[in-house]
C-alpha cells in the first residue's frame, strides 16, 4: 500500500491562501492511512470553514490514481470545481498528479506527503517494504528485501554498525540483515549469504519516467 501522512494545517493554509477549495479524497490507500477518507475530508472541511475558507464541495475517487474513472466521477462536480481557486487532494503523489492532469487551470494543493510502499502492521502503523526497484531479488534473502529495509541498501550486509540486532540508524528498528541471517540459519541455508552479490542493475528501476 502507498503510505501517506497528512501535511500540517499551517502548511496547507499557506499553500491554499484563499477559497473556494474543492477537496478530493481517495477510497483506497489514503482511506486506510486515514489521510484521505470521508472522515478526514469532513474534518478538513470544518477546519477550513473555521478559518473562513469556503469549501465548494468534496468527493472521494475510486481510487484517485484511475484517470478515466476520475474524469467520469468529477464530471458530476464540474460547477463546484470550476468556481474553486484550489483543489486540495488528500491522496498519494500519484493521485495528486492524476488530478493535475485533468484540471490544468486550477491550483492543485497536495494535502499529504507520500512516504513509501509499505505494510499495514496495525491500525495506523506502517512499515516500508518495497523500493519499487524494478527487479526483485528477495529470493536471495529468504523473501526479505535489504534494498528497502536496510538504510544503506546493502546487498552484502550487514554493515559494522548493527548492535544487539538493531540498526545503526535507529535503535528501535531491527537490523534486517540480522533477521535474514537468523532465518537462513534456521533453515540451514546460511551458505546462501556467502555468495558475493554484484552491484544492482538500477537501469531496471522505475525511478525514471517509465511506463508499461
Amino acid at each position, binding site marked *: 500500500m502507498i503510505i501517506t501522512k497528512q501535511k500540517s494545517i499551517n502548511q496547507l493554509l499557506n499553500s491554499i491562501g484563499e477559497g473556494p477549495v474543492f477537496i478530493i479524497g481517495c477510497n483506497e490507500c489514503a482511506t486506510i492511512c486515514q489521510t484521505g477518507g470521508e472522515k478526514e475530508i469532513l474534518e478538513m472541511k470544518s477546519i477550513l470553514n473555521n478559518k473562513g475558507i469556503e469549501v465548494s464541495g468534496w468527493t472521494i475517487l475510486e481510487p484517485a490514481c484511475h484517470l478515466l474513472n476520475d474524469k467520469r466521477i468529477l464530471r458530476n462536480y464540474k460547477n463546484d470545481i470550476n468556481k474553486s481557486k484550489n483543489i486540495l487532494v488528500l491522496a498519494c503523489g500519484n493521485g495528486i498528479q492524476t488530478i493535475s492532469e485533468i484540471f490544468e487551470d486550477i491550483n492543485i494543493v497536495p494535502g499529504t506527503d507520500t512516504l513509501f510502499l509499505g505494510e499495514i502492521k496495525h491500525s495506523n502503523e506502517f512499515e516500508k517494504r518495497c523500493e519499487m526497484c524494478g527487479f526483485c531479488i528477495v529470493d536471495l534473502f529468504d523473501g526479505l528485501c535489504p534494498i528497502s529495509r536496510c*538504510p*544503506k*541498501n*546493502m*546487498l*552484502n*550486509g*550487514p*554493515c*559494522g*554498525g*548493527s*548492535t*544487539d*540486532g538493531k540498526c*545503526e*540508524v535507529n535503535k528501535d528498528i531491527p*537490523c534486517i*540483515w*540480522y533477521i535474514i*541471517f*537468523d532465518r537462513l*540459519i534456521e533453515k540451514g541455508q*546460511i551458505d546462501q*549469504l*556467502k555468495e*558475493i*552479490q*554484484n*552491484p*544492482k542493475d*538500477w537501469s531496471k528501476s522505475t525511478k525514471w519516467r517509465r511506463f508499461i
Partner: protein
Amino acid sequence: MHKKSHLEQVLSDGKFTITVEVGPPKGSDPDKIRQKGEILKKCADAFNVTDNQTAVVRMSSMASCFILQKMNLEPIMQITCRDRNRIALQSDILGASAIGIKNILCLTGDHQSLGNHPESKGVYDIDSIQLIKIIKNMRDNGIFQNNDKIVYGKPDIFIGAVANPFADPFEYRVDRLEKKVEAGVNFIQTQSVFNLDKFKTWIDEVRSRGIDKKVYILAGTSPLKSLKMTNRMKYHVPGVDIPGYIIKRMEKAKDPQKEGFNIALELINEIKKIKGIHGIHITALFWENIIPSLFKEAGFLPRS
C-alpha cells in the same frame, strides 16, 4: 608492473605494522593536516585519511592524502560508498592512483542521518564488498564495473577494508570477512578493540579458516582520553564494544588521561601477543599528541 606501497612492503616483510588515523580538518587550511602529520610522522608506516567520517563534512580525503604525500608520509585513502555512486567512485580511484596514492580502504560508510547534514540524501549505489571487487577488477583485469576496458593505465592499488568483530550477528562476522577476502581485499583494519575476549574468539575463528594467511589484519585501538569520550564511544559510535570493567576504570581514575593511556598500552601489549594479527591501527580521536609516547612505551619506535 606492480610496485608495492610502503605499507604492503612492511606487511609482506613480516614486520609488525603500525597505521595511524589522521582526520582531515573542518576547513580548507592545509596546515591543520600538516600539523597532525608532523606530530605523527615518525610513528607509523602508513596514515589513514578518513572520508567525511561519521558523516561530518571535512576536507576531502584525496586532497588530504596529497598534502601528506608532500611530507613524504604514505597515506591510506579511505573511501566510502555513502556519498558517491559507482561512476564517481571509479573516477576517484583513477584520480587517486594518478596522484600517487597506493593504498585505498573501502567502507560502506556511517549513515548520513548520524552526521552533521542529516537532511542529505545518501547514495549507497554499491556496498564496500562490491567496491573492493570493482577496484580489484580495475587493477588486475583492467576493466571498469561495466566491463569496459580501462584504456590509459590501470590503478595500482593495495586494497584495504574494515572488519568489526563486535557487531551483530557475531556468528556471521568471520563469514563477512571471508567475503571481503574473496572480493579481493589485501589488508584489514578492525574496529577498535576493547573487548579482548570477544576479539580473541573472532581471531581464533579467522585463524581456523586460514584467513590470516590470505589477508593482513591490523587490530584497531583507541586511547580513551576522558570518561566523556569513553561514554560517547560506547553509546554513540556505531559498532563499538567497551566492556564494563574499562568504563569502571575510567570512572574511578583520578587522572583519566593517564588511565586511558595505561588501558591502551595494556590492550596493545595483549594484542601484540595474539597470533594472526599483523599490526595495529590506532585511532586517537582529537588526541594525536599522545601517540608518540604511547608507541614509545609499546616499543614501536623508531619506525624506519
